[in-house]
């Protein structure tokens, strides 16, 4: 943990880009973020995931200095976003959910408008994100993918040490999503710290070194995507049609296999990831190579669904789930 106490105050380590302690925010009596602690260290790509209304966007808006929290302390790149929201905003590259640019603003004009002069080579950025040919196009004429790529260009323009991306690929087609993912992966390689808010769990799994699952303004669990999957996603499922009736007993004895069901000729094996190879090896050993073998791997979506389905006891959350890092 990178937090230390000096004179009774929580301070942040030099490697901490974001430190949040006890963040609370409510709208009209409805608590949206509740006693939230969060650390983001330099170079990390951290994803906030959760259902609608989990408090993800409100959390990042408090970090960006766009909303004033009701309680809690925040430090972003050594600056307090409550006291100096304007300064914090100049330090962060932001891509916001549900925002736009003026319809008639051209791509090159948007870049000129948002560039502070300490930034990257704007031509190189436009080239990198495939917008050079569209630099004279008005914002209204851009496709969804082009708009998101332009928002990324604007977020990166002034060499921010922290980039906040909120629902970056919402509404994009698969090819455009892959382009944007590649851009974020490039950021990670360059050492930029990224805080990503997303509903797309394959996106979080592909891009984030750490994900934080939220519900009702609280952190349910956090860790590497694979850790969350291992903790919450249940079992892999292998199914196939078997000819050998004695196969089932053999499968039940395999390491990692938790349960074997059979209905008609169809066998379903539930187990951990190791069991997949074990089942495959057993089938080959017995000369069974089913053409209809199907494997469903546990993924982050399954982990999140499991987390979201868990009964919510705020006190239990405090004790058991928060800060499992």
């Amino acid at each position, binding site marked *: 943990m990178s937090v230390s106490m000096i004179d009774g105050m929580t301070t942040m380590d030099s490697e901490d880009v974001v430190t949040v302690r006890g963040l609370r925010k409510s709208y009209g009596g409805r608590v949206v973020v509740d006693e939230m602690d969060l650390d983001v260290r330099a170079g990390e790509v951290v994803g906030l995931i959760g259902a609608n209304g989990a408090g993800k966007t409100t959390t990042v808006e408090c970090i*960006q200095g*766009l909303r004033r929290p009701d309680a809690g302390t925040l430090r972003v790149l050594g600056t307090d976003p409550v006291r100096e929201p304007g300064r914090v*905003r*100049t330090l962060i590259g932001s891509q*916001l959910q549900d*925002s736009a640019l003026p319809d008639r*603003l051209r791509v090159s*004009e948007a870049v*000129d408008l948002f560039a502070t002069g300490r930034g990257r080579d704007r031509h190189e950025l436009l080239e990198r994100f495939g917008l050079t040919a569209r630099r004279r196009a008005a914002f209204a004429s851009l496709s969804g993918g082009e708009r998101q790529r332009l928002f990324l260009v*604007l977020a990166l323009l002034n060499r921010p040490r922290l980039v906040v991306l909120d629902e970056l690929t919402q509404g994009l087609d698969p090819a455009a999503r892959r382009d944007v993912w590649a851009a974020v992966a490039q950021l990670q390689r360059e050492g930029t710290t990224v805080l990503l808010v997303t509903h797309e769990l394959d996106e979080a799994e592909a891009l984030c070194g750490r994900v934080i699952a939220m519900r009702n303004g609280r952190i349910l669990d956090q860790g590497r995507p694979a850790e969350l999957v291992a903790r919450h996603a249940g079992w892999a499922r292998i199914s196939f049609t078997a000819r050998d009736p004695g196969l089932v007993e053999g499968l039940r004895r395999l390491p990692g296999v938790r349960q074997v069901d059979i209905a008609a000729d169809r066998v379903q094996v539930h187990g951990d990831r190791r069991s997949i190879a074990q089942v495959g090896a057993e089938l080959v050993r017995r000369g069974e190579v089913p053409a209809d073998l199907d494997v469903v791997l546990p993924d982050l979506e399954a982990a999140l669904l499991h987390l979201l389905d868990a009964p919510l006891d705020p006190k239990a959350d405090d004790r058991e789930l928060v800060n499992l890092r």
Partner: protein
Amino acid sequence: MTSAATRLIRAELRLTMRDPLVLTFVLVFPIVTMLIIGGAFGTTPDVAFEHQNPAHWYVASYFTVVIAATGLVMLPVHLAAYRERGVLRRFAAAGFPRWSFALAELTLGLATIAVAGVLLLVVAAPVYGIPAVHDLGRVALGLLFGSIGFISIGVLLGTLLPSARAAQAVGLMLFFPSFLLGAGGPPPHVMGSALRHVGDALPLTWVTTSIRQPWLGIGTPTGTLVQVIALAVVATAVAARRAAL
């Protein structure tokens, strides 16, 4: 390095010149209506126009139409559309100070009024001639404070109304009665007393009077000028507070 305010002002001015609402409603509409109504009453001085050439009366009045079109329609629609679509949030998130956007809107409003006013005079000059300005100082004060007052009202409306459509509806509802009773419609002397009383109570009428009377030399309406200055101060204070400056 260019400051955030300068970059924003430059972009806003450029975008305004591409906006069809501005081009038609603020630049073209006042000119067309001035040409029609200025020609309708001829050029012979008339008692209904306080013994002035009616065409000159309207030339001196139509600066106010430009001010009203800018303050009651253009700015509210522009700002409400920005709020509705999240453009203001994007500017805020990029570190543009709130005051820089307010300053950009003030500059934008003043520049639009100046350009539209000059165009109005350029068109009026060969058709009706431009009446001599009797008291340039008072005319300038009326223009300046009237413009600031209505720009502030526009910013206020833009921050209050939830959408561009709502801003357009409310703006037009405010604009046309003000336009007809307080600036570009029939002269007050031909109106019934009820309508005249309503017209006298309209802020746009104060602005028109504070410009037209000293321009044509038919009075020095100090009280009206004070009303216009008070309007500008109050509207600017409320708009600034609303915009959380």
